[in-house]
């Protein structure tokens, strides 16, 4: 845009300007930002970048190859195992890893879907309507982003603890399904209420949709509800996908919430399950440390994220580049 404007500028003026400065400078800086540091010596930079690429990628290769080695060879630092060993059967045999995987998948998907829709509701309201209290409430939403979760963690746990007394065996509401501590509800129910960061992100996107679209929909007889679903949501699809994958990642990463709420092994998510495998088979558990099992479990936790990233790379990068990310 700016470049076009400059080209439209009288060419004579540009010529006059170049005439007054030494030609060497012009040649040297013609590349703009690309040349801002002087000329790049390509080779050293490529070596540096390759080195950092190895540092970034090698741990993954190391993990995958170590997961295919017998216990004694785990630390031999060979990329191709000297002797092959399929440790994954052991992992699935010693712990309900398949259940954990399944739990992580459905909780991530459900949580991400819920937080996407609930945040979109709130974001749409702040973007489209002008209502009294809007500015103050939105400032409040932004303020909650700074709040460390540790401050609310304990009372929220006590709420769930109370709920499990009410809905558990012998409770007043025992006829309801048991929600509360040692169920998976605390992991995804909070996603029903929107999340400050996603509300902020989606509001920015809704603000970018021309108001005419909404007015036209209103003329066609849409009410606010149908307008939200028919116009706002389809147009916001790229931003919704960003929210969805960010939240899948957050749920897939989360150790603390399952650690607080889950007791029964069958309810665990993958991060908590992996932590228990580490405690049992890593060196902390005493003895030699059956690292090949821990490593196979780690690969099972890492690979689904790699696949998700491979599919949605564009959205990961775009979402982070434009909106920053959650802490």
């Amino acid at each position, binding site marked *: 845009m*700016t470049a076009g404007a400059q080209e439209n500028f009288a060419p004579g003026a540009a010529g006059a*300007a170049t005439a007054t400065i030494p030609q060497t*400078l012009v040649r040297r800086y013609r590349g703009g*930002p*690309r*040349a*801002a*540091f*002087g000329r790049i010596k390509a080779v050293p930079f490529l070596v540096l*970048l390759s080195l950092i*690429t190895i540092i*970034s990628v090698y741990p*993954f290769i*190391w*993990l995958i190859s*170590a997961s295919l080695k017998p216990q004694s060879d785990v*630390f031999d630092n060979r990329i191709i195992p000297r002797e092959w060993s399929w440790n994954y059967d052991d992992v699935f045999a010693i712990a309900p890893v398949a259940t954990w995987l399944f739990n992580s998948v459905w909780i991530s998907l459900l949580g991400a879907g819920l937080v996407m829709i*609930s945040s979109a*509701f709130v974001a749409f*309201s702040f973007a489209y*309507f002008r209502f*009294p209290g*809007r500015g103050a409430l939105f400032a409040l939403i932004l303020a*909650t982003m*700074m709040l*460390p979760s*540790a*401050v*609310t*963690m*304990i*009372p929220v746990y006590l709420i769930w603890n109370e709920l499990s007394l009410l809905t558990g065996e012998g409770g007043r509401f025992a006829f309801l399904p048991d929600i509360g501590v040692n169920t998976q509800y605390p992991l995804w129910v909070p996603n029903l*209420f*929107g999340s400050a960061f996603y*509300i902020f992100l989606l509001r920015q996107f809704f603000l970018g949709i021309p108001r005419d679209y909404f007015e036209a929909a209103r003329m066609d007889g849409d009410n*606010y509800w149908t307008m*939200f679903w028919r116009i706002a949501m389809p147009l916001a699809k790229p931003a919704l996908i960003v929210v969805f994958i960010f939240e899948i*990642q957050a749920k*897939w*990463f989360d*150790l*603390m919430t399952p*650690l607080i709420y889950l007791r029964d092994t069958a309810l665990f998510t993958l991060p908590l399950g*992996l*932590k228990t495998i580490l*405690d*049992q088979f*890593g060196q*902390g*558990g005493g003895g030699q440390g059956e690292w090949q099992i821990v490593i196979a479990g*780690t690969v099972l*936790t*890492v690979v689904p994220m*790699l696949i998700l990233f491979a599919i949605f*790379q564009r959205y*990961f990068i775009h979402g*982070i*580049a*434009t909106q*920053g990310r959650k802490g």
Partner: protein
Amino acid sequence: MTSVAHSTTVPGPRKGARRWFSRFTRAETWVAYAFILPWVFGFLALTAGPMVASLYFSLTNYGVEQIAGFAPTEYVGAQNYRQLLSDEKVRTSLYNTFFFTILSVPAKMALALGLAMILARLVRMAGFFRTAFYLPDITPPVAIGIMLLLLFNGSVGIVNTVLGWFGIPGPFWTTDPNWIKPSLVIMSVWTIGGTMVIYLAALKAVPRHLYEAAAMDGAKPWRQFKDVTLPMISPALFFTFIVLTIAGLQTFTEVYTAYFGAGSAGAEAPDAALMNVVYLFRQAFEFFNMGFASAMAWLLFVIIMIVTAFQFVVSRRFVFYQGEKG
């Protein structure tokens, strides 16, 4: 001055308030509130209410007996806060947390900026490198905690193996109290992909003509970096500075995975790795000292507020927003 204001027909506060409330008669206002209802409920039940409750609990002896109903909850005044000051582990955990944050945040920012500046000028392969550098960021923190134990293992880990190639005897990173925190910092610097992507986007948005103008004024590369690049990307730097600091002060998962929990509970858990949130978590959910842990949470909250406010005040002089005057 006040008399003038009263004598004119400028709407006074009462009239303004009436007009403000009159908007509640419009249907649209109620629809808008209906749409934000999920957040309002969540805010009251899961944020505002718990905050007040947390403040209350921090002034009581609420603990495992009180949860079970065996003993009454008693108001103990500032006793939990006094205990914060005398508890040596609180001091250790705060020291560890600050040590980790102060080292890792600037290191991450500097390295991410360096890489982003190189990538911004690459014509080919930039996408490949960006993807490669981003991979550590999509690694679950539990896996990072395990990788830390494996890669930094004192006798067989790859880090010490590589150091050995250069004749450097590597320390016992994961067991030597002096080297636990440095290895945590290095592991944290491994995940700079997201920060780098933010800088890359900011660098690409810097208008070219600024560099051309600077070059015409005879600015050398260093001056261009200092006077063009840095001011133009300062909002991105500021943003990551705040976000990384807040995240660093709340470090939990990697450290807890590597050094705490059932496998290494009790005396074995090294104090050198004890982070603020880790200690808070253990107090709350392993020892069930809810009152004391609530006081710790408020201390953390106040620390984060002070640090962030300080960053805002200091950064105001350096952050440059386009379109702003001056």
